[in-house]
């Protein structure tokens, strides 16, 4: 068969972009377009007025958020394919969009004062944050292996550059560089997995893959299983699950606080969206083949993350290991893979976004220099000097530790109960035990915040007065952890309808 024949055979299946496709992808496209406009604006705005770019980026993100909310209402429970099954327009993707937008809005609102103090206030920061957000939002809606790969690369390339954003600082350079090498390696592994899955099923679209996989359950090709394993390894890097977590602490420590805050939450949200779409939906027919591997990685992540976090003395590194542990808890939900578990993971993602961000944003508000301000020693006495900031951080830490009625508790509650309902009691018990360990290192930070400053350090206060806008934004985020924790049915209801939208094709094929 010649190339012309192949082209002719494929052409009828090709669809050209229609207006409806553009409208369905509007939240993602606004942020993507905003990224390009920001790059141009950056060259036009004088260096002393870079905070205008922050205002502009906020406008872009808020516009995208407004469209996301409108879409949530109009789309209902449907799942609509966009660009010939490249993306899926549904409430699940919109839920993920909302979480990523919240993280991006918080970061951009906090950044001007922080970047100004660190003397790294360059316009590229805002364009790169928008590029990364666009990649993450596309990833949340991707329904084809090609788009999953492209979105991951868009978000990763932007984050590599952001991690090395403190130009004069060797730690930051090292962080960006390590992230780049490890991320590139992970992408190559992910890509090989996708190539094998495509080759063995003949499709790159997830719904088509699901059909092929479901049709032939008796003889599963070993190459297909290899491909699935490699895809999981690649995505495991992105959510920093053990044993693929080696890059996380170094990158989180070296990157500027604003970037650490953004990528620790938003990357995890986006990558979990991809994991749920690929594993909990498209590959559910092969559940028995990958269940053990995912459970093992989940157990390992909870163990390593929680144990190593105990001996950290830097809040960025502590949150890196805590993030590894949290990825482990969320992977319980993937390993259980029931419909209740998916909703649990979504609630967990919301809780993780707000709480982790709350802790890092607290440091960001008062940080004089990145390296001095994130060590435990320099956080001593913050509770007396800036009671408001310390209270925000303490509440967020309690939420991460899973204290009721904060949102973090409900994330763990829904994931663990779904594990018990599905008979995976061992996983649930392991999760509860390891979260008991985690209480020690979260409480330790709270105790440090409210302990008196060391006398030999007296006089060298390593923090500054928080900026007003930033303080209000962090306050909103932490208030949301408390309020949504008390009125948890609201979040759970949203997560349930996101989950229903995700499973609509399975329910009625």
């Amino acid at each position, binding site marked *: 068969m010649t190339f012309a024949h*192949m082209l002719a055979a494929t052409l009828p299946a090709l669809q050209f972009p229609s207006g409806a496709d553009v409208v369905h992808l509007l939240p993602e496209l606004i942020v993507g377009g905003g990224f390009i406009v920001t790059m141009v604006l950056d060259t036009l705005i004088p260096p002393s007025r870079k905070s205008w770019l922050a205002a502009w980026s906020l406008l872009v993100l808020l516009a995208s958020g407004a469209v996301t909310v409108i879409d949530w209402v109009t789309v209902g429970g449907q799942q609509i394919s966009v660009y010939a099954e490249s993306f899926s327009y549904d409430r699940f993707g919109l839920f993920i969009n909302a979480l990523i937008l919240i993280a991006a809005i918080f970061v951009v609102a906090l950044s001007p004062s922080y970047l100004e103090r660190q003397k790294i206030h360059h316009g590229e920061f805002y364009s790169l944050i928008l590029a990364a957000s666009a990649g993450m939002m596309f990833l949340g809606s991707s329904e084809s292996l090609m788009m999953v*790969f*492209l979105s991951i690369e868009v978000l990763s390339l932007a984050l590599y550059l952001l991690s090395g954003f403190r*130009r004069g600082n060797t730690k930051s350079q090292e962080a960006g*560089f390590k992230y780049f090498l490890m991320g590139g*390696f992970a992408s*190559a592994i992910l890509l090989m997995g996708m190539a094998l899955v*495509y080759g063995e099923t003949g499709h790159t679209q997830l719904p088509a893959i699901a059909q092929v996989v479901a049709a032939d359950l008796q003889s599963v090709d070993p190459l297909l299983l290899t491909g699935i394993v490699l895809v999981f390894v690649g995505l495991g890097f992105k959510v920093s699950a053990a044993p693929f977590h080696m890059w996380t602490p170094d990158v989180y420590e070296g990157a500027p606080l604003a970037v650490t805050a953004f990528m620790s939450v938003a990357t995890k949200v986006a990558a979990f969206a991809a994991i749920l779409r690929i594993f909990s939906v498209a590959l559910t027919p092969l559940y028995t083949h990958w269940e053990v591997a995912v459970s093992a990685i989940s157990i390992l992540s909870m163990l390593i993350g929680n144990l190593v976090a105990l001996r950290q003395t830097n809040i960025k590194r502590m949150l890196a290991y805590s993030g590894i542990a949290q990825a482990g808890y969320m992977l319980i939900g993937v390993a259980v893979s029931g419909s209740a578990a998916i909703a649990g993971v979504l609630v967990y993602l919301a809780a993780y976004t707000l709480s982790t961000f709350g802790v890092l944003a607290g440091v960001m508000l008062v940080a004089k220099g990145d390296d001095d301000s994130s060590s435990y020693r320099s956080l001593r006495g913050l509770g007396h000097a800036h009671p408001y900031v310390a209270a925000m951080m303490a509440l967020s830490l309690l939420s991460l530790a899973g204290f009721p009625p904060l949102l973090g508790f409900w994330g763990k509650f829904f994931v663990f109960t779904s594990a018990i309902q599905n008979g995976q009691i061992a996983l649930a018990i392991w999760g509860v035990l390891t979260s008991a360990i985690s209480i020690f290192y979260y409480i330790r930070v709270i105790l440090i915040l409210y302990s008196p400053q060391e006398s030999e350090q007296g006089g060298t206060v390593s923090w500054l007065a928080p900026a007003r806008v930033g303080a209000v934004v962090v306050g909103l985020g932490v208030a949301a952890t408390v309020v949504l924790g008390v009125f948890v049915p609201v979040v759970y209801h949203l997560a349930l309808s996101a989950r229903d939208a995700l499973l609509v094709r399975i329910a009625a094929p």
Partner: protein
Amino acid sequence: MSTGDFQFLLFLGTLLFMIGATGVLIRRNPLVIFMSIELMLNSVNLVLVAYGRALNSLAGQVFAFMVIVVAAAEVVVGLAMVTRVFRAEHTLDVDRLDEMKD
């Protein structure tokens, strides 16, 4: 394309991927690691194109084009970072980039 050709291409692609992965794991110079990652990406291209031909679907070829574009973008970002790290630390040995430790 005969089955034998296809199997050979698949084998070659996997072999190149393994060589690339080994290079990433054992070499200490970031430029060589970077080249090894490129080798891995290109071996995947070979596998994608071979599958596309065997399955008579264009998706493999299209996918390979996307990988080529992404690899080019990665080179741009990566080489910029290599020069910056070299200027800051005057070394290109990944074992000596150990500013941060547990």
